Every structure is written in C-alpha cells, then in structure tokens.
C-alpha cells in the first residue's frame, strides 16, 4: 500500500511494506506546496494541485506513479464574475473527486467557491453554473471565506450507488446536495449550528470543515464542522450533533470513518477556534463506534510531551486497517492495528496539507 503526502514543500511517497514498516519511495515537486492530492480509482491516475507562490495554481497528473508528470490545463473562471462584479479568479484548488464508477466525469472544487467538472478525463474543466449561480449566492454574506479570502469547496462526495447524486461542502456556505449530476443544488444544513452568525440556524453560511459519505450506507454522512461534530442518517435532511468526552473540544478539521461500520468514526480535536493547538497541548485521536454516544481516546504511541500540532482537513485518512495523519508541524503518524498504536514515520517534514492512501 502506498501513501502520498502533500506538504508545503513537496509531495512525499511512502510504501507500507508487508512487514508493516514504511519506506520512503520518492519526493516530487520539491519546494512547492502540494495542497491537493487525488487518486482516481477508475484509472489509477494520480492528480495533485500545486499552489505556487509566484506562478499561480497548477494541476498535474501522472499515469505511472510519478515516473512522468504532466501539467493539465487548469480550470478557468474567465468570463465569470464575483458577487461584487469583479472578475472571478482561481485562488486555490482544494478538492477533486471522480464522478462514479459508471461515469467519465471528474469534479474539482476550488476557491472562490466554484465547482468544476470535466468529461474528457481532465483535458478541460468547466464551471458548474447551477452552483455558481445558486440563489443563496446572490447576496453578499451567505457564502464567505473562512481563513481565506473567499469560500472554497473542500469536499466532494459521490453516492457510490448513484453517480448522479453528490454532495459538496463549502467553507463557508455549508453542505449542498445534487440529485441530478450537478444540474441543481439544494442546501442540506438543517440541524447545524453556526454559532458565529447572528442566526445560528441559517440555512446557508455554515462552516463544514470536512465531509465524508459512508461507502456502504450513503444515507450516512459525517462532518467535522467549525462548530462541532455531526452525522446524518438521512442523506443530510437533518444533522445530529455529537459531543466528545466532557471537557474535550469538539472543534477540529479532520475526520475518518470506518468503511465497514457507519457508526464508527475518528476525530483529532483542536483546542478552539481562537487557539489552534492540540487541546491542552496533547495530541489525541478519539474514536466512536456508536454514532458519537461515547468516545474513547485511541492515542497510544502519540507524544506525551506538550505538542502544538494540529491536523488539517485533508491530512487524516483511513483505508482498511491503515490510518495515517500528518500534522501542521510535519509529524507523520500511522497505525495498522485495529486498536490504534501510532508510530512515527517522520518528524522532519514540513506542514502536511493532504494525505492520500493508494
């Protein structure tokens, strides 16, 4: 099993060997910030989004596991305007997703809030106008940036049983669902609380940090939100908030789910919005197996001294028994045990932006 680690200064590739030890295989894009990684399970193509400090946002792909990279034509906002009338410009590439096993489509999520799709394997991308022109975006203040100048689409989740059915998560706007392959969109934020808004129950203006759909039970979705941890069992019609162990912050960015058990998930909390460090400077992973009715710390092997690290929204992944996360301080941990025992792969990376298990 290989893992791809997108850092602020390059893409690392590791292999988890049969004896369960990690081995560094390669470094690509040395010196460049790799903000997005996506592996298309249909074609096995690797995609990365690079945020150059000088040269803008770029999309690259490889069909041979990094032996040869090609630059794709990046999505363009040319001809589209922001709400204030200013020309829209691509600020960052945040997410990518395939359009289902029976589809050629690729989806791509960006800042300033545009969802793009490609039906020719990524040769060209077109802006999804129904979402860009959504009624909720007509007024300033419904969609807005969070830690960024503009709203961004960081999660794109496809119903594995129906490729026309998808969700996007936007910081800040909330969760939007389409049942017709992106031709129309409905906000799905009932039950969420945006405690930073004058009306915390606002239909639009919520701040999901990460959204995951359960592969076997697609009516179940989990989200780590700015204001807590939520799940839904009815496809987003109503979200239910769950709380970590008393005294532990429910704030955070990253989330992982068990592909075999929709009631089971893991989170890595952050102390608070104002203080973005591990809670009490203690890096911990929490697990629930009952839709958040109870949680337990599964943190054996993690540092026991004060730790400032937090884990960003794309930097915690699970596949089969492998769980792996990278931190903002460049620490990379993994576990292959059913009861996690975390082992350090490296403590010498730079900020980890994204992790992908191949």
């Amino acid at each position: 099993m290989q893992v791809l680690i997108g850092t602020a200064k390059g893409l690392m590739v590791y292999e988890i060997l049969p004896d369960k030890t990690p081995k560094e295989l390669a470094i690509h894009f040395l010196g460049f910030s790799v903000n997005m990684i996506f592996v298309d399970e249909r074609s096995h193509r690797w995609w990365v989004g690079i945020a150059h400090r000088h040269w803008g946002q770029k999309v690259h792909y490889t069909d041979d596991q990094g032996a040869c990279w090609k630059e794709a034509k990046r999505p363009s906002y040319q001809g589209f305007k922001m709400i204030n009338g200013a020309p829209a410009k691509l600020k960052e590439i945040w997410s990518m997703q395939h359009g289902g096993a029976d589809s050629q489509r690729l989806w791509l999520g960006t800042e300033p809030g545009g969802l793009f799709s490609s039906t020719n394997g990524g040769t060209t991308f077109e802006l999804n106008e129904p979402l860009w022109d959504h009624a909720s975006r007509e007024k300033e203040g419904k969609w807005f940036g969070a830690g960024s100048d503009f709203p961004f689409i960081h999660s794109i989740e496809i119903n594995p049983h129906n490729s026309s059915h998808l969700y996007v998560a936007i910081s800040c706007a909330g969760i939007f669902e389409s049942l017709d392959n992106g031709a129309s969109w409905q906000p799905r934020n009932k039950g969420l609380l945006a405690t930073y808004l004058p009306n915390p129950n606002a239909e639009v203006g919520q701040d999901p940090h990460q959204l995951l759909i359960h592969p076997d039970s697609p009516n179940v979705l989990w989200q780590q939100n700015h204001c807590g941890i939520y799940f839904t069992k009815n496809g987003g019609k109503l979200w239910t908030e769950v709380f970590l162990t008393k005294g532990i912050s429910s704030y955070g960015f990253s989330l992982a789910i068990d592909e075999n058990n929709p009631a089971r998930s893991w989170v890595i909390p952050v102390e608070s919005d104002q203080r973005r460090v591990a809670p009490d400077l203690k890096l911990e992973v929490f697990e629930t197996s009952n839709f958040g009715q109870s949680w337990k710390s599964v943190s054996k092997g993690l540092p026991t001294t004060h730790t400032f690290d937090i884990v960003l929204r794309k930097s915690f992944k699970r596949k089969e028994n492998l769980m792996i996360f990278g931190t903002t301080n460049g620490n990379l941990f993994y576990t292959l045990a059913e009861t996690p025992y975390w082992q350090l792969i490296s403590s010498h990376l730079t900020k980890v932006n994204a992790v992908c298990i191949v």
Partner: protein
Amino acid sequence: MVKVRFTSALKQFFPDLRTQQLEGVSIKELITSIESIYPGMQDYLLEEDGSLRKHVNIFVRDEMMVDRHRLSDTLTDGDDVLIFQALSGG
C-alpha cells in the same frame, strides 16, 4: 526586436527556456510572442483577467513596468526585458 531574458526559476517548468529575441511593441504583445514559443507560460505570468501576477515582475531597460493590468508599456527596438519572480521569504 527586443531581447527577453527569463528567471532561471521558470526553467524547471520550461526546460528549453533560453534568452529570446522577439517582436512586440508592448508587454502584452511580447507575452503573446512568448506564449507561442513556450505554450503555457502565459498562465505562469498572467492572471485569468490578463493582469500580471502579483509576484511576477517585468523590467524594461532596468525599470519596472508600470501598467500591470493592461500591460500597455511600450517597447522599442533594442530593449532589454527581464522577467522574474518577486523575492519572498520562507
């Protein structure tokens, strides 16, 4: 003709990059000429609205270009143009 030199930082994306003698009466025309030789470079230099990227600089005759939005700075025969990235920390 004007002489166009590039920052070496661009060579990692355009391995064949080398100093060029090109036609162009404005920066905008010059970049169009550059794009025809190095397809894709315009996207490295310009924003989607055609303005110069914030952290890209172009010098003409040792002076930084003025019109970063419409790229209308004029060029004359024999000019020396340098394209490079802004210096940054971190």
